[in-house]
């Protein structure tokens, strides 16, 4: 089969959205204000744990401008990842300060706020568990007394009391490793706090209800999750929910879940008018789905020669009042804290813990940031204990060709070792900048890290138009990362021998595009890109077949380049792609192609991992970072003196 000419690929493509973003013309979700728009406000709990005795909306309904009020009874479903433990509104009990009790739509935002404040709520306060230590103490109040009755969406996690989920890894015999008389045992523990994404565009939605369907226009990374979760919470068929996504003004993982969309959807149905719900910065800080706070305990048995014969760790992740993303993220410890290094044996337990605090969520390299921090600090402590240079220790121990990962996954190729060598050469080339630290504290570290491409299903459709342009339809979203405005047009253009300017990329629309797992974990260029390559191949085959007849040449002798189909090696011999498509209209109909992508599915060692959503990482990504910092001990000001990356 003929393929596209690689020399025709357009590199360094300017972003097509840059001009309007610079002119102030781009319309993010927060900028969309259709006619007859209503504004919504949410009534939130001001205490962390309580039983709801009574909610009375009589007075609020009579307030000026009020058009609709949504309450728990409007959303009978529960959602979650792994366990359906999360109602849309506090139902019967309050589980965190900031939890949603009711939502109001009114003619103005101020009227909606006033009416929300006028809702009477009678609560019986209960003792809250605010820390993981409180939650795990004997006799601690249960955040979810009915946890056993919840629908299980994914089997395998150990659960009980305030432990929402436990994922474990056991490979080899760590007891025997730690009992050896030729090892040094090094123990470390770390505690990290929550982290807020603070995307400049906070969570925002405009919803309408027309012809028996919800249209949700939202600032999200996951249009299909919003569609499916809204359906589950409202108890309506998913086919009644239509999600579109304007340009997103920052997300960073925060928008990898469905959160505020269903409130606006219910209010739009009840009022018959478009409803806008935009969280204030205060609401964003209160309920943002932070990167979770975590406690990490890790210990290793290491020989004097620096061989890690055993490693054990327990990671506690605070999922807040509902399991959410943390249930899934317990999986990642195996590949972050348990990653990077060859281990003779390993035993890991990662628990997501319920507390009466706001639910947490995804955040750039979820679980990886603090576990890499912990692992590399622990590695330094090991090196100090056995008297070995950290770089030498890392070079001896990083995963190489044929080595086993924590869950018994076999890694291919020597990657990290040569990267460390490359970093050492970079370090030798540029002298230390320690002198710039002056009287301040100075620190330097060279660390290794493993992350992965979070693959999963994607699909793409391409219409090749009679003017020679292509329209790419996917559920991908432009968050600023460039996939939709640079990578995908480049990929499709290359496959079809046209210019990227002639590739129209449709914004995410669940009525137009098939399922997609969402934008996150570096997956969009890989997964939507692969689906787009497959769709383009489908299109290419169709046009080559027609061109073959037009040009009386077998398809494998045809080349697509510069918007033309040429006979290989004879410039100007062929015709334009536009003419081929026009011919197709007469003989086969318009040219459309589709393609799909799913996980490659790297195998793990059977029986190693329990409660894991993925047992092995399909596309590992390795990196080596070196950084020098100066810290002012009085102000805490941190200055980066040098930073080097090999990846």
């Amino acid at each position, binding site marked *: 089969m003929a393929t596209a000419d690689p020399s025709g690929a357009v590199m*360094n493509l*300017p*972003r097509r*959205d*840059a*001009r309007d*973003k*610079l*002119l*102030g*013309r*781009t*319309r*993010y979700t*927060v*900028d969309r*204000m259709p006619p007859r728009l209503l504004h919504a406000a949410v009534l939130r709990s001001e205490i962390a744990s309580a039983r709801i005795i009574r909610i009375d909306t009589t007075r609020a309904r009579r307030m000026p401008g009020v058009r609709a009020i949504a309450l728990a009874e409007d959303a009978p479903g529960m959602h979650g990842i792994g366990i359906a433990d999360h109602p849309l509104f506090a139902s019967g009990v309050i589980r965190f300060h900031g939890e949603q009790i009711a939502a109001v739509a009114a003619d103005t935002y101020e009227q909606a706020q006033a009416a929300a404040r006028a809702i009477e709520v009678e609560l019986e306060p209960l003792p809250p568990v605010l820390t993981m230590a409180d939650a795990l103490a004997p006799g601690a109040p249960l955040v979810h007394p009915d946890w056993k009755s919840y629908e299980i969406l994914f089997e395998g996690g150990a659960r009980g009391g305030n432990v929402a989920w436990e994922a474990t890894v056991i490979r080899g015999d760590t007891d025997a490793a730690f009992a050896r008389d030729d090892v040094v045992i090094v123990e470390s523990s770390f505690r990290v706090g929550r982290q807020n*994404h*603070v*995307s*400049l*565009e*906070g969570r925002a939605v405009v919803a309408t209800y027309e012809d028996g369907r919800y249209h949700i226009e939202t600032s999200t990374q996951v249009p299909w999750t919003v569609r499916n979760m809204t359906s589950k919470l409202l108890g309506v068929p998913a086919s009644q929910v239509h999600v579109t996504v304007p*340009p*997103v*003004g*920052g*997300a*960073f993982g925060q928008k990898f879940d469905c959160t505020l969309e269903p409130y606006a959807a219910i209010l739009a149905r009840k009022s018959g008018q478009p409803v806008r719900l935009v969280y*204030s*910065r205060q609401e964003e800080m209160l309920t943002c789905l932070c990167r979770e706070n975590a406690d990490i305990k890790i210990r290793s048995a290491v020989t004097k020669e620096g061989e890690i014969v055993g490693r054990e760790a327990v990671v506690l992740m605070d999922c807040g009042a509902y399991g959410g993303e943390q249930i899934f993220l317990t999986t990642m410890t195996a590949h972050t804290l348990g990653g990077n290094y060859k281990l003779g044996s390993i035993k890991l337990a990662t628990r997501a813990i319920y507390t009466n605090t706001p639910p947490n969520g995804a955040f750039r390299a979820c679980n990886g940031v603090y576990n890499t921090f912990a692992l590399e600090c622990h590695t330094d402590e090991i090196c100090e204990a056995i008297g070995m240079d950290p770089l030498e220790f890392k070079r001896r121990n990083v995963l190489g060709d044929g080595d086993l990962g924590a869950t018994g996954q076999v890694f291919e190729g020597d990657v990290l070792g040569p990267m460390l060598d490359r970093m050492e050469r970079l370090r030798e080339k540029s002298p230390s900048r320690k002198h710039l630290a002056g009287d301040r504290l100075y620190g330097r570290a060279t660390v290794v890290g493993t992350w992965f491409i979070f693959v999963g299903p994607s699909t793409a459709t391409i219409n090749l138009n009679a003017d020679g342009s292509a329209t790419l339809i996917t559920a991908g979203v432009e*968050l*600023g*990362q*460039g996939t939709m405005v640079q990578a995908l047009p480049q990929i499709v253009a290359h496959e079809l021998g046209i210019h990227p300017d002639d590739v129209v990329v449709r914004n995410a629309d669940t009525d137009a595009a098939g399922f997609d797992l969402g934008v996150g974990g570096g997956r969009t260029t890989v997964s939507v890109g692969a689906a787009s390559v497959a769709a383009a191949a489908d299109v290419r085959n169709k046009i080559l077949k027609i061109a073959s007849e037009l040009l009386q040449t077998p398809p494998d002798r045809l080349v697509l380049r510069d918007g033309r189909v040429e006979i290989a090696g004879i410039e100007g011999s062929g015709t334009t792609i536009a003419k081929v498509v026009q011919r197709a209209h007469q003989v086969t109909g318009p040219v459309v192609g589709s393609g799909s992508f799913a996980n490659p599915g790297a195998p793990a060692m059977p029986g190693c991992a329990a409660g894991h959503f993925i047992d092995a990482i399909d596309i590992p990504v390795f990196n080596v970072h070196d950084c020098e910092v100066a810290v002012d001990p009085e102000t805490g000001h941190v200055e980066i003196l040098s930073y080097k990356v090999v990846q």
Partner: protein
Amino acid sequence: MPTNLVINGEDRISSRGSMTPLIDVLRDEFFLTGAKVACREGVCGACTVHLDGRPVVSCLVPLGTVEGRDVRTVESLAVAGEPSPLQLIMEEHDVVQCGMCFPGILMVLTSFFQERPHAERDEIKAALVGNICRCTGYERLVDAAVALARRS
């Protein structure tokens, strides 16, 4: 009482209350949605506009204080649809990511370069101290601004 003001060279009248933040008047009443509401506390700089030629965070400017004054927003930087040299250099250097911070950053730098057209890197960084970019595209942004200063 209505407030008279000049927005991007046009006489405008707003009937909103005198304590209404200028940003809400610009966005909700005149649909100038370029300036962004991101923190409402004057911290992030995304709502920066020019008031009588000086950059201000419009979330902290009550409407009642701008009677008769001249307001310019990011929408005014391009002349007859042609981007300003600052806008063009940001485009050339592929600086833009999510784009939410740019309306404020462009207004700050436009004003700054009027006074310091040949500014050095450190001065440019200092000028941007009130603008937050959560995509953390700072270095490339400063590179572009430095390139403009060297060109002029």
